[in-house]
Structures are given as C-alpha cells and as structure tokens.
C-alpha cells in the first residue's frame, strides 16, 4: 500500500515545480489505476495458485486413501499367514511352519514400506496445507488492498468530477451569479445581508417613531415650544418675576 504513495511522491519530486504539483490529481489517478490493475493480476494469480494447490492436496489425499487401503490389505495377509503358521505348528507340519513364516516376513517388509509411504504422503499433504494457508492470507490481504486502492481512486475521481463541474458552472456564469458562489462570496453575502437588515431595522425604528408623532413632539419640547422638563427654568423665572410669595395659586398668565 505504501508503494502507491511512494510512487506518487516520486512522480511529484520528479516534477519538482508548481506545474508538476498541479498535476498531482492526474498522476494519482494514473498510478492508482495501474496499482489496482497490478493488484488485481496478483490476486488472480494467487487464486489460481490456491486452486492448483488445493487440487494437488486432494489428489495426494486420494493417494493416501489408496495407500491406507493397501496397508490394511497387508495387515490382513500378515494375520492370515501368522494364523496358518500357528495351525501348522499345532499340527507339527514343520515345512508349512517355515513357509508361512517366510511369507509373513515378506508381507511385514511390504507393510513397513507402505507405512513409510503413508508418513511421506501425510507430510506432503501438511506441506500443501501450509501453502494453502499462506495463499489464503495473501488473497485476503490482496482483497483488502484492492478495496482500499479503489476507494482512494474513487475519491480522487469524484473530486475531479466535482471540480470540473464547479469550473464549468463558474465559466458559464457571471461573477455576481449566485450559481457559481464560493464560500468566501457567500460569507460576504451573508455579512452584507446582516448589515442590510441592521440598517433596515434602524430605518424601521425611525419610521415608527415618526408615525406616532413622538419625534415631532420631542423636538418641540426640546425647543421649548411645548412645555416639558426643559421648561423648568421658565416656570422659576415666572415665579421670581411676581416679586412676592402668593397663597400658592399659580400666577395668572
């Protein structure tokens, strides 16, 4: 897996300039696709090897069964020969005893030979088994590697499709067109909207204040036209101008 990235970095270093770095996507796609093809081929080879190995193991198992049958056959002969030897001994037939003894020897030798063959056969089957296990691990690892490679290739390709589409949309629309909006454009638009809505709120407050007449009255009061808190000094001045304190009734205007 790290081989892919190494190849990619090598391709990039080889370019060693900005134009080369811009070509990273094209390189990534090419290298990933090649890597997937290689891994697929390797996986296919491993599967063929596994099938071959399992076939050979089956053949060897069949041979083992044949050898085992032969061994059982020899065991039967040995038992029969020994029984006949025993019978000859009981009957006192010395020549028969010697003949069966020799036969038993001969079959026992064959039996030992067959036993050795069976041991060898078992070893071969176990050896195939080891190879089969190794190949199965290799195949599982290969399948995982291919899945990862395909996901990487899919990601790079999907990004290329997306960037091509956004470039096409940008090319087909004006800079103010909402159809080709980058995040920065959108952020500025959001902020402009917020400013506008703040300004709108201020304007709305002013309008509503004016429409209830508050603004006019407030201005008149400040100008002293309408009596209010600002006219306190006028009141005091009027009382002072009377010269003498009265019974508390307001002075005649």
């Amino acid at each position: 897996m790290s081989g892919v990235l190494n190849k990619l970095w090598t391709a990039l270093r080889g370019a060693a300039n900005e134009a080369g770095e811009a070509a990273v996507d094209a390189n990534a796609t090419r290298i990933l696709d090649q890597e997937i093809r290689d891994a697929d081929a390797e996986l296919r080879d491993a599967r063929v090897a596994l099938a071959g190995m399992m076939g050979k193991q089956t053949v060897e198992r069949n041979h083992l069964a044949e050898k085992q049958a032969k061994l059982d056959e020899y065991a039967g002969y040995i038992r029969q020969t020994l029984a006949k030897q025993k019978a000859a001994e009981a009957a006192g037939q010395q020549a028969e005893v010697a003949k069966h003894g020799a036969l038993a020897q001969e079959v026992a030798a064959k039996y030992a030979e067959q036993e050795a063959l069976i041991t060898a056969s078992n070893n071969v089957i176990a050896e195939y088994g080891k190879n089969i296990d190794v190949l199965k691990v290799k195949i599982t690892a290969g399948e995982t590697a291919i899945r990862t490679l395909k996901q990487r290739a899919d990601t790079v390709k999907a990004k290329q499709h997306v960037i091509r589409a956004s470039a096409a949309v940008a090319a087909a629309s004006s800079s103010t067109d909402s159809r080709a909006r980058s995040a920065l454009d959108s952020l500025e638009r959001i902020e402009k909207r917020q400013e506008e809505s703040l300004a709108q709120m201020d304007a709305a407050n002013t309008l509503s204040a004016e429409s209830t007449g508050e603004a006019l009255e407030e201005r008149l009061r400040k100008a002293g036209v309408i009596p209010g808190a600002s006219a306190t000094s006028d009141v005091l001045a009027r009382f002072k101008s009377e010269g003498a304190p009265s019974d508390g009734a307001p002075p005649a205007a």
Partner: protein
Amino acid sequence: MREVWIQPQHAPVLLKVERLLRKPNAHPLIHALKGVSAAMSTGPVTTQTLLPDLQSGALAASHRYTFSLVEGLEPVIQAVAHDYGDVNVYIAVTGEIAIAQATLFPVARVRDTARLNDRILRTEKLFDLANISIDAHPDGSEFYVIYGALRATSALSDIEFEIDTLARNAVDAAGAYREFVK
C-alpha cells in the same frame, strides 16, 4: 467458467445456487431471484440516482436547499445552501465513494500560502466531517476547497447531514481564513 465475488460466509449458499444453475432447467431459481432483486434496492447508488432522493428529501422540503444536476461527461449535483449565503456544494458519486465539496477561494487571492497552509493544518480539526485541499480547475487555476467523503451507500439522512455540515463549515472556514485573502 466465471469468477464470482462473494462474502466468504456465503460460500455454502453459492454452492447450492451453482448446482441449481448447472441444471438445464433452472426456472424455479430464476423465478425466486426475481423476487429477491425486486426486494433489494434498484442497483448501485450513482449521482443520477442520488439527485431525485435529495430533491424529495428533508433539506429540499425545508426550502433551505435547492438541488440540480450539472450536466457533463460526469454529471454532478449542485446544492445551493440558502441558509449559508447560497454557497454552492457539489456532490458526486464514484464507485463506493460520495464526495460533497465547496470552493473556499482561489489560491491566486491568498497573500501568503505558507502561512495560510500552516493555519489550516492547525485549525482544520475544528471543521467536523470535512477536509481542506487544493484542487486545480481544468484551466490550471487552483482553489482551496473543503470537502467530505462518505460511502455512497450511506443513508440519505447521513448524506444530507454531510451536505448541511459542509455548507456551514465552508462559510465558517472562509471566515476563519479570510485574513489571508486579498
């Protein structure tokens, strides 16, 4: 002879199917499989199959998003996020991967890319479900983009969540890195 790709645990089932298919008359099996394929989804997810799902989904129904197809050699879905200043999010499906991506700003407008890249590497983790990369348009002009990847077979609600998160992250990222842009 043909190679068949299956999950290892389904091997016994495949063996039975294989035996049935070796017979000249496999009609009962074919009949049964028709029911199975009808029950399963209508094939793999593609950009084209995703569009109607999004257009009838929750994001479109709330009028917060408008989805349309950008025609081309490889069609791509364009989502306009009305809540986020109409930022454009593009969605493409390739094989097993679905990508949602938004353009942040052109590389050409960045004053000091080294400093910006440093800032991005330190702050990108704040933008959940998103990565930031530099991508080149076919004309060679380069852009900082923000994107999220997920399995194409993800539930529609997960894809919608990814799109909505990405639109918000795109605008937030543009704000976070604006000081580097002239």
